């Protein structure tokens, strides 16, 4: 075996954190705690997941009341019904936005996120700023994402502190009566699944 580290390729990120992770990975492989196929399987698992899966769940719930009921009562069963693999030790719970209630998801302790459905969380979700401010001034945080809940709407923050991962079921945008399921899914942004914003409106989408 070459004494040149296989990960030290030109163009690879060289941040101290990346270097540390690579060192830990190399040690775990060397000591037989992990195998290279296991690392590759884990990467493939994460890359097979994306916010598009969450958008599909939401769009189906908007057009199918029975599916919406299932999504809100048993999130994993709903995901399985659309061909997704929600298997993960943590529970998957979907909370519904209504004309009276707007939900916002955060994990103040670390970065708990419904990865089995949505993949990796965005960097801002893991930031100290988001994690500390979302619980204390959720309305100011949402304003910075471009959303202000209408007058009279209660804001409920869900701090995913333990064994449950949360996703928001946003409200269907107005003026989408004739919009089909696929077009509806295209309106559902990752940010709206976390609750820092609401889905796009069809007119904004057409502007590109």
């Amino acid at each position, binding site marked *: 075996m070459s004494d040149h580290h296989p990960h030290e390729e030109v163009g690879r990120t060289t941040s101290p954190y990346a270097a540390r992770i690579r060192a830990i990975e190399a040690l775990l492989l060397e000591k037989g705690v992990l195998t290279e196929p296991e690392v590759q399987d884990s990467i493939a698992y994460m890359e097979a997941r994306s916010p598009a899966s969450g958008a599909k769940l939401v769009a189906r719930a908007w057009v199918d009341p029975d599916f919406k009921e299932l999504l809100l009562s048993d999130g994993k069963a709903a995901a399985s019904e659309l061909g997704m693999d929600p298997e993960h030790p943590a*529970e998957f719970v979907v909370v519904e936005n209504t004309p009276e209630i707007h939900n916002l998801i955060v994990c103040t302790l670390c970065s708990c996120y419904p990865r089995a459905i949505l993949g990796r969380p965005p960097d801002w979700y893991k930031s100290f700023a988001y994690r500390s401010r979302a619980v204390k*001034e959720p*309305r100011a945080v949402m304003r910075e994402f471009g959303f202000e809940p209408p007058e009279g709407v209660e804001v*409920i923050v869900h*701090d995913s*502190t*333990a064994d449950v991962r949360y996703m928001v079921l946003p409200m269907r945008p107005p003026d989408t009566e004739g919009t089909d399921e696929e077009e509806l899914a295209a309106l559902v942004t990752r940010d709206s699944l976390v609750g820092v914003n609401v889905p796009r409106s069809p007119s904004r989408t057409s502007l590109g």
Partner: protein
Amino acid sequence: MTFEPGDRVRVLTAEKHGHVRTPGYLKGKTGWIESVIGAFPNPEELAYGLSGLPQRPLYKVGFRQIDLWDDYTGPAEDYLYADIYEHWLEPERGTI
């Protein structure tokens, strides 16, 4: 299960280091049991390679934002829910 939905509870103020799933900003705060989530292996032990058994009851606990932050600027109807293990909760007899 010790608690039922609607019960008033207070989060313990215990100092415990390491992998603790009860955030500091909720310690000593009073809220209510919103729902019983289920029983799970104790993550405070799982994190150190132990079994986490017996399983511990986990509750969704609701708090009024105005009870958490003295300077909360939003409406009194804004809530926060957090998932708290039973061994971090004690009954709260008073009213809030």
